[in-house]
């Protein structure tokens, strides 16, 4: 939403997003998708070189994207295994708490499918 607003206000935007599917649904002008955990889209703490590489690729998307809605997938892989990567808040977020029953049901349905 913010990207759409700014683009309309005359800025060229690029969104470095760890959730391209979610952002695709709202119509983002230019996305650089990255398979990094939430809260650290640019890279690991203190990894200046790795962070620079991600940013260079992200800025390239500004020049390369030609049509509204394009998603460019960046070729980086997070070093830790996803299951072992700690990105979640220390306390359960209020909205997750609110929908906890629905989330549990969704998980159960998914498990039954397998």
């Amino acid at each position: 939403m913010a990207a759409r607003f700014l683009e309309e206000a005359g800025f060229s935007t690029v969104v470095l997003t760890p959730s391209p599917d979610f952002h695709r649904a709202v119509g983002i002008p230019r996305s650089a998708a990255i398979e990094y955990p939430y809260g650290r889209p640019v890279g690991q703490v203190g990894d200046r070189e790795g962070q620079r590489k991600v940013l260079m690729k992200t800025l390239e998307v500004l020049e390369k994207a030609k049509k509204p809605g394009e998603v460019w997938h960046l070729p980086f892989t997070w070093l830790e295994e996803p299951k072992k990567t700690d990105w979640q808040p220390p306390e359960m977020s209020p909205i997750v708490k609110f929908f906890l029953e629905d989330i549990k049901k969704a998980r159960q349905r998914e498990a039954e499918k397998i």
Partner: protein
Amino acid sequence: MTRAGDWRIKIVSTQPNDEKAKIVDGFQFIPPGLRAWIRNSIPVDDFKGTIPWTSLLKSINRTTFALVTSAGISLKTDPPFDMERERREFFWGDRSYRIIPRETTENDIEVNHLHINTKYIRQDINVMLPLAQMAEFEQEGIIGRLAPSSFSFYGFQWENIDFLKKSIEPISKKMKSEGVEAVLMTPA
């Protein structure tokens, strides 16, 4: 899963002609229950409306940049983003924004966000708001300029568009006044 032919998807590869170019799986890090629930709530159809577009008129080495994040970063000298009200009202998210000057480091900030672990940003602001690298890029001539101000708002805005008026509009005005042409956005 082959989506490469999809018009939306362009693949950037580090190696030309790399047939195994990466397609990002945005659900990798999400635990199974939450993943299933989110998948159910995302529309299956592509976005149908018009997507706004401002062409980049110059190469990036002549372009002025600002950074905008939704990570809830505030200066220690400013009031923090309001987490208490969100704890009481599950669907409410702080609509305000903060200016983050370009010389800001992790020593100068607070981070408040109930949907991520904020400790990494407090250890190194650049994992979310890469001010140091953009300043380096400016020095090296990779970008034209990094504007004096970058910005943070708060990303949890459940079906709420007030924040556009309360935050994004004033951010946009400030950016115009600083000659910003392109914006790198990093959602939390």
